[in-house]
């Protein structure tokens, strides 16, 4: 029953050589494993945070859905005229894009303060960092599920096919969880140390939203080299496509799944190496 903890601080002097070849430490992996052990904790914490944010409002997290619906209706009409597209086709396209993009963007913005705003908790109890990250991902997934009401409306109002491809959304949600975790952990670590990253990231995300094919179909830029880069090399295109295509009743292209898987593997490797290096320093940065 007795658990023995042994902590040695001797390796900490080596920090600073960020790009020297390193390994992933057991401590970092043990931290990640706690996500599976303490799922009750982050499930509750994530849900409590959603409840707290919308306490005493009548529509709760649906406020996100309502503002998104208004945005889609207004932008949808203008852009369909601008791009000379059928409203019947453009609104479902835009809605699926917004539903897919919003969680990615809010995970990235909110992760900037995951550790910084949890300082009060992290300095009172020993809590694995990744458990906090899991709570933030779960919180965003809860809001994402609320946005499904927009999808239902769009399906009812417009001619969106609901078929076997729709079920592929499961893989999209899986990608949100797995890719979301490393992205959130990476951003939370970097933002804890360098406080300038947050405002930088917020403005970068605004630009990314327009550069990534969310408002405009990827096929529009296929003839142009720069356009191709915006689409095929842009990881956010692939990250959104695994959700968006199933919502439209389409199967995402095979290379979308390949990119998302590669992103997960290399993203996790990179983040784990960084996490191994700086894990014990994070608390001193807060």
């Amino acid at each position: 029953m007795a658990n023995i903890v042994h902590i040695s601080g001797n390796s900490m002097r080596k920090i600073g050589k960020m790009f020297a070849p390193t390994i992933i430490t057991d401590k970092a992996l043990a931290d990640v494993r706690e996500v599976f052990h303490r799922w009750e904790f982050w499930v509750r914490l994530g849900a409590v945070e959603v409840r707290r944010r919308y306490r005493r409002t009548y529509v709760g997290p649906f406020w996100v859905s309502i503002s998104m619906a208004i945005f889609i209706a207004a932008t949808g009409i203008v852009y369909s005229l601008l791009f000379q597209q059928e409203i019947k086709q453009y609104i479902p396209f835009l809605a699926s894009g917004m539903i897919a993009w919003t969680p990615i963007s809010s995970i990235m913005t909110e992760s900037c303060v995951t550790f910084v705003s949890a300082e009060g908790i992290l300095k009172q109890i020993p809590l694995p960092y990744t458990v906090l990250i899991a709570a933030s991902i779960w919180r965003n997934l809860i809001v994402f599920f609320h946005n499904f009401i927009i999808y239902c409306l769009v399906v009812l109002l417009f001619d969106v096919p609901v078929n076997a491809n729709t079920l592929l959304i499961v893989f999209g949600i899986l990608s949100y969880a797995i890719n979301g975790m490393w992205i959130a952990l990476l951003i939370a670590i970097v933002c804890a140390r360098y406080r300038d990253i947050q405002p930088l990231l917020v403005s970068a995300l605004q630009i990314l939203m327009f550069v990534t094919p969310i408002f405009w179909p990827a096929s529009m830029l296929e003839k142009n080299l720069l356009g191709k880069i915006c689409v095929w090399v842009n990881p956010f295109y692939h990250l959104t496509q695994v959700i968006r295509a199933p919502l439209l009743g389409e199967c995402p292209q095979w290379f979308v799944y390949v990119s998302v898987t590669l992103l997960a593997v290399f993203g996790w490797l990179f983040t784990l190496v960084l996490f191994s290096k700086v894990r014990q320093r994070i608390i001193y940065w807060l």
Partner: protein
Amino acid sequence: MASIQLKDVTVDFPVYDKHKELFIPLVNKIVPISRTGGGIHVNSGGKAIVRALAGISLDIKDGDRFGLVGLNGAGKTTLLRVLAGIYEPSLGEITINGKVSPLFNISLGMDLDDTGYENIINVGQFLGMGVKEARSRIPEIEEFTELGKFLSLPVRTYSSGMMVRLSFAIATSINPEILLLDEGLGAGDMVFAEKAKKRVEELISRTSIMILASHSDALVKQMCNKGILLEKGRVLFQGDIDDVIKYYHEHIDSLAAAS
């Protein structure tokens, strides 16, 4: 058997500030900058650091009840946080054998808009309990707090004394092997204080090792058998609690006489 060993544990706090160059001239002055707090140094990387703990070695065994005493900034809270696994030492080694339960902030996780019952689970989870375990404590907490129907109401409707009762009851329902306390546990009104005292004694009797940091001589004398006097991140004196308190007062008097 629970035990704790610290070998030359040093904790450095980096100074992250755009004005950090202002700290460099303060380094290594012969005249101490301040009577309290750790020394300001420059580490091998040329960065300014504050050394909160400097080469602490301790050997804590099963049955020990340690009182941590010292002036503000001596390193009491930092040492407790190192023992809790919150801060990992910059240098040195620490080996902890047993489950550590820090009770620094007993209302951590309390949500004012949740009911008393919900908060038993909220707070219980932050204290390291599972949902099931926290639920199993409900009857006992109901009985101890005497809050009755109030437990079904949002905590926002409680008086501050009632809130203290609830968080105190949850915190003292844990089963730690190694218990860490910073300034004891708050109690409440006089009738409750007597009950609370008994409950704290029961909690401590369940634990193998207790470490309490406090400025109250009476509290440490009552709850501890051994003591550690910290000054500027170093162990100045260690031994039986009465000897430590005596040494501490003589030391303060001599400091006052010198200045």
